[in-house]
């Protein structure tokens, strides 16, 4: 680990000031950042500890929604009574990730900002355009079983590894951000970026901006499902995951909000997939049509070709489950 300065940010404004500097990173739970610092993937000269800034509460919003403090831990969020009753897909997604020990320490804001687990990103002796722009992508033509099939570029095929943000995308949540230019809200769906020619840019946070909360809209009806496919049954990143909020009225889909993990550099949310289901009677043909839309531009890199049929089958499983439960 390289020597670094550690500062406890006394206020949100000061945290913004500190992290506006190029060399400074904010630290909350640190479950991802400290690992990356030991590997020298991350090399901040200064860490601004934001743990004592407040915004750790989980509280009702005026309009029936729920605000999750950015510094609330993943565990606190997953076990919160309202999360469990009104947003079970979120609770399940969080509990499907990491381990109990990591979830106890990891925060909601940090979870959104976690970095890819691409093998070539975490090995500083290998090329990676995300870590070292212009050095190349080791994963393309390398070991790419876990890598993306949607929204890739010739610069990067890494995936966003998290589960929580996939559920938040399906739930239509927004991220509350504070910075020196004031506050703004961004839908979770628009928070993460595709790699394009700038794979080192992973989300829309500007220097000095800090996530303060995540707002869930008022709960809706229907069945909520989080389905994570993986080789071992815990402590593994998703080969593919599906977060779904689905409702059937009179035998037809009346709600279909879907987001996917393990497929891209961001939680994948293609509104056309849900739209094609609305008003339709569930059938294998319909599910295939949804999968066709979802996977229209999917492209494998050899080792991860299987993700294309696996995604199709997993979508079938989720839609079948919702249909059977409703029947």
């Amino acid at each position, binding site marked *: 680990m390289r020597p670094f300065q550690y500062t406890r940010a006394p206020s949100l404004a000061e945290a913004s000031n500190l992290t506006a500097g190029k060399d400074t990173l904010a630290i909350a739970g640190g479950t991802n950042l400290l690992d990356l610092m030991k590997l020298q993937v991350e090399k901040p000269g200064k860490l601004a500890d934001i743990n004592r800034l407040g915004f750790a509460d989980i509280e009702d919003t005026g309009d029936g929604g729920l605000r999750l403090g950015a510094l609330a831990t993943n565990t606190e969020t997953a076990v919160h009574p309202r999360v469990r009753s009104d947003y079970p897909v979120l609770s399940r997604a969080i509990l499907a990730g990491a381990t109990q020990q990591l979830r106890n320490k990891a925060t909601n804001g940090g979870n959104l900002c976690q970095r890819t687990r691409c093998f070539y990103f975490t090995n500083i002796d290998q090329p990676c355009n995300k870590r070292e722009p212009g050095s190349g992508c080791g994963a393309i033509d390398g*070991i790419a*079983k876990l890598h993306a099939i949607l929204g890739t570029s010739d610069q990067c095929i890494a995936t966003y590894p998290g589960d929580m943000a996939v559920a938040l995308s399906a739930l239509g949540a927004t991220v509350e951000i504070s910075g020196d230019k004031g506050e703004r809200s961004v839908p979770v769906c628009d928070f993460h970026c595709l790699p394009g020619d700038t794979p080192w840019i992973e989300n829309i946070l500007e220097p000095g901006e800090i996530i303060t909360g995540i707002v869930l809209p008022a709960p809706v009806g229907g069945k909520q499902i989080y389905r994570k496919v*993986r080789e071992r049954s*815990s402590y593994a990143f998703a080969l593919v995951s599906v977060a779904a909020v689905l409702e059937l009225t009179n035998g037809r889909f009346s709600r279909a909000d879907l987001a996917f993990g393990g497929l891209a550099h961001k939680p994948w949310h293609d509104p056309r997939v849900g739209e094609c289901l609305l008003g339709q009677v569930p059938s294998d043909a319909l599910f295939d049509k949804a999968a066709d839309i979802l996977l229209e531009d999917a492209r494998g890199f050899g080792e991860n070709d299987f993700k294309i049929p696996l995604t199709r089958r997993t979508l079938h499983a989720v839609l079948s489950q919702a249909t059977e439960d409703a029947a």
Partner: protein
Amino acid sequence: MTVHFKQDEPDNSNRLDGMKQGVLGKPLPRIEGLAKVTGTAPYAAEYPVENCAEGVLVTATITRGEVTSIDRESVLSMPGVIAVIDDEKLCTRAAQGTANEAPMQGPAQVCYWGQPIALVVAETFEQARDAAKHLNVEYRVEEGAPLDPGAVEPEEQEGETVHQGDLAHAMVEAAHSIDVTYTTKGHASAAMEPHAAIAEWDGDKLTVHASLQMLNYNITELADALDMEEDDVRLISRYVGGGFGSKLGISEEVVAAALAAKQVGRPVRVVQSRQQVFQTVMRRSETTQHLRLAADDNGKLVGFGHEALVSNLPGESFAEPVLQSSHFLYGGENRELMLKVARIHRMTAGSVRAPGEAVGMPALEGAMDVLAKKAGIDPVELRLRNIPEDDPEEGLQFSSHKLAECLKQGADAFGWDKGLRKPRQRREGEWWVGTGMASAARVHNISEAKARVTLKADGTALVETDMTDIGTGTYTILAQIAGEMLGLDPKRVLVELGDTRHPRGPGSGGSWGAASIGSAVYVACKAIREELAAKIGTSEDKLELNEGKTATGESLTDLLEGKDLAREGHYEPGDIEDDYTASGFGAFFAEVRVNHYTGETRVERMLGAFGFGRVLNAKTARSQCIGGITWSIGLALTEALEFDPRDGHLVNCDLAEYHVPVHRDVPDLDVVLVEERDAAASPIQAKGIGELGMCGGAAAIANAIYNACGARLYDYPMTPDRVLAAMPD
């Protein structure tokens, strides 16, 4: 006084069964368990050593070539940095098990990506690690190093080839024949405690605390690497946080710490990072295995073919002994066996738990299931019909053979349905449910061993040997053996292990520890009993000892008259090794669920029945079996080393990305310990159990996957992508 016993004949006396203390075989908890779970048992890197500097290995970022320059100045000015060591004695690979000589040295020659090339020493670990990452190294790269085992012309491994009869003809003529090819991926030991050493010099005398399995060999390897006399070296490994083969020989950090400590004139600690342990110590070779089985109408084998391709670095003698149990497990007069080694530039391949059978048995037992299906015979029955009378190649008699009992007792305990087996008969929601089974076999290894037992004047006993306990229960079983022989509660027996100042044991490896060192303790105790018997005018075989007293009421303390009574037991396997084929046997039964949509496989329940001679401690033996079965689950479903196709580096080099099973992957496991006394295995009638539990278990899972969903897979691990590719519509 040393008592030497060389075993040339089977020992059917079963003396231990006649002893009166009644503690051997009992499920006693591990003596050192409390110290370990409370963090008070120091592991190698945890010994408090004053003024200790910290070393971090620097590893190569090329596949093959030469280090042309190391820019020491680039790091010597960094805070806390003391030295950069690139001594030609630095080891570039770990020693193979029982090598008894230094592993490859000379860090300037690079043979694989990740090879240690230097050591940076600093005041703190963080300073050393930072400097190690900043060290500028220049190379002359030798392009074109072969990396793909399938793309080079392999060498035939000597001593493995068998041509008997005419297998090709038998395959054509036989009522049933199958010809299949299985593959397995590389595996890592993934021991919890990383490889670590603290080296201290006192003049020309060297002491190293290290995490090692076989001190008796390791001291020779270290002395050889440093051009020293063994008498000037002391190795200490009292507690080892798992080895699984990766600590059989000394690894790079041991020699590096010793050289650095000499050079900087103070103690030096070197701990390999998790990534370095994965990338520089040992991999189990991947395998490609061609199996041909031919059987008559009754399912009796008439032809048996098993040919395997494995890989290793140039210059390594070790070749994953895939065919080890295939030579004797089943009959069949027409036989073709051959092992080939591809020389490639991935990291060193060596022993990982149960080298050979760990991967050979899952392939063979998968093939047996294919044959059972083709011949329409119940898989348990097929195996029962093919247990040979004698070793089918050597013609030797078996020392003892419990495969049939294991198959029968295991099938009963599991509730094996002997009805007609067809895939896809049971569906629960999205899940296909099915069962499968496989035989287990693991050759019996045994070695020369020495231990000193002292019956103390105060009526307690002391056992001393440089044997290690790598988490298997050695401390406890030795206390039980000594307690049984000397009529003492094991609590009154102090066991001192893991120090080369003690008599030389065999070390822990190849499942030979318990039977070998247990026999040395037995020999020493027997000699002490002879002395005691003489004191009361009886013979040793009539001496009864229980709770520190003889049958006639004399206490040991009275008999000893204030003097300690010490004997060194020296056990040596003699002709029994050549006169018999000896092996542990067993049977696995598994029930699995396979998800129709996703191809995910989860093990619902699993049972193993094992015969491995005398059970020395029913708890630690069962734990070994459970650990083995857990490894079987990993081998079957998740564990796979992935190597970059362009530079050969190990890509998934930590516990997050190399997927050993987690708790949720391991259901309740059931173990049946089949009663056995193997008179030709050892004087204590025991064989090994450290490895048997994973020798074939993966096939029970693979065969259950087929029974569940109809997907017949030939490639381990059977990950969702592979299951889906083979899943019928």
